[in-house]
């Protein structure tokens, strides 16, 4: 492996608690809080409830991506790590985090199913729109959005470094507008029903893992345009 890429990975791992363990600690806290809360709420009235507790992991990885662009990137450049090496190394670590996160959530889903949804009908990880199929398929499905969270955080952090807060505000305004315009144009071209039918006809894994991964790659390429001349 390229020495610069490896150095970038190792630089992230200088603080393993913050870089690797913190997202899991955030997930554990979220799971614990959800279990406590819903065990109390549903006491004596068991019913199936779904929560977004596992998205704590996505949020933590998004925050890691922001920090990797805003704080660690300039430091790495000041230490002589090349920008290309840093982006590739950070991307490699993001992939590892996403894969590990996907596997972890698949295990969480198995525990959830094995315990009758924690004995209180609570669905934390067993969310059909996030993952379906067997354990391996679920792990792959969970990984896509996690990778997107890392890439999204890095892209936002890069925009913040490049254009500052006004740039971020502009991005926050223009991006939804662009998405809305694209959606309007697509619906106008194909019709809403046809479009929904087309999406519904796609394999679940494609929607859950492939599209988020492609979007993550697009964000990584966009981030490179901001990183390649980044200053320390």
């Amino acid at each position: 492996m390229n020495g610069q890429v490896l150095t970038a990975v190792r630089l992230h791992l200088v603080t393993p608690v913050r870089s690797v363990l913190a997202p899991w600690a955030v997930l554990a806290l979220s799971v614990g809080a959800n279990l406590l809360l819903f065990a109390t709420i549903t006491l004596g009235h068991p019913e199936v409830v779904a929560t977004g507790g596992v998205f704590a992991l996505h949020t933590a990885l998004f925050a890691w991506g922001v920090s990797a662009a805003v704080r660690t990137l300039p430091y790495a450049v000041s230490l002589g790590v090349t920008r290309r090496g840093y982006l590739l190394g950070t991307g490699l670590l993001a992939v590892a985090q996403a894969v590990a996160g996907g596997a972890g959530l698949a295990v969480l889903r198995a525990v959830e199913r094995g315990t009758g949804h924690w004995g209180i009908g609570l669905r934390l990880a067993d969310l059909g729109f996030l993952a379906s199929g067997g354990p391996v398929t679920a792990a792959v499905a969970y990984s896509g959005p996690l990778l997107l969270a890392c890439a999204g955080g890095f892209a936002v952090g890069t925009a913040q470094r490049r254009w500052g807060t006004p740039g971020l505000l502009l991005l926050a305004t223009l991006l939804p507008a662009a998405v809305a315009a694209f959606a309007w144009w697509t619906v106008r071209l194909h019709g809403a029903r046809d479009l929904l039918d087309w999406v519904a006809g796609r394999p679940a894994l494609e929607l859950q893992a492939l599209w988020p991964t492609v979007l993550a790659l697009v964000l990584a390429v966009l981030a490179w345009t901001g990183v390649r001349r980044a200053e320390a």
Partner: protein
Amino acid sequence: MTAAAPAPAAVTTEGLVRRFGAVRALDGVDVRLEAGAVHGLLGRNGAGKTTFLQLVAGQQVPTSGRVEVFGEDPFDAPRTLARLCLVREGQRYPDGYRVRHVLAAAALTRPGWDAAYAGRLAAAFDLPPDRAVTKLSRGMLSAVGVVVGLASRAPLTLFDEPYLGLDAVARQRFYDELLADLARHPRTVVLSTHLIAEVGDLLDHVVVLDRGRVLLDADADTLRGEAVQVTGAAERVERAVHGLPELARERLGGTVRVTVRVGGDDRPAADGLVVEPVPLQQLIIHLTTSGTGADAGADAGARQVEPAATNGGPR
């Protein structure tokens, strides 16, 4: 007889320009820093010192012009970047970093890193390894930079105001360590500083920047020999400095002290007078504020400074 070959250059810049919007932080800088010497990069706030060092360290991209470090453009050049180390004032660290993390990161990225030496230096500067960098005082943060800069043993080490916040004892420790380590491991050092009086004796070569241009680029020994202070009775002093370019004048009663530039055999006669070398700081202040510096700036890179006035001559 053949002339001695010049020492190889660690840093060469040609027509280096860096603009930030309408501001020209560097405006056509031509500098050659010889390898194996201690260079002083001096100048007032906003002179362009930090920008110059960041360009040399490949941390910024020039607007125009050229910068070479060991013969190569340093921007994203792994081989060159591995051979240089820039210690910046106000360096920011990643979230959650403690002192030991800074040293660990330096060990990962600095091929010449001496962990044992770093440990000794950290202890000498009273740096607690487990203290979060966000909890360090300004002086302690500076000390962290000093430890990284020294223990990196990079062939080109750039210190940008490394001792802001350090007390006098800690600064002296830094100078002592720098000299001792340079003796053991010779390398090229660039010191950007305001504290000319403190570092004056360390320097082999001086570059003074002013508003993004080179005001003075001179060998320190030559510079030290370029001016003297003549003190004594006014009449005798006037006779002694007649015809010499005057840089500064102080009068106290019947006694006068005149700072004049000298060259070759044009030394003032010392009969009944005190003739002393001018401290580097005083000399640079005189050269950069007397108007002579501006003339030198017009001829960027020139070592000689044109006189503003000549005693006994037209003003």
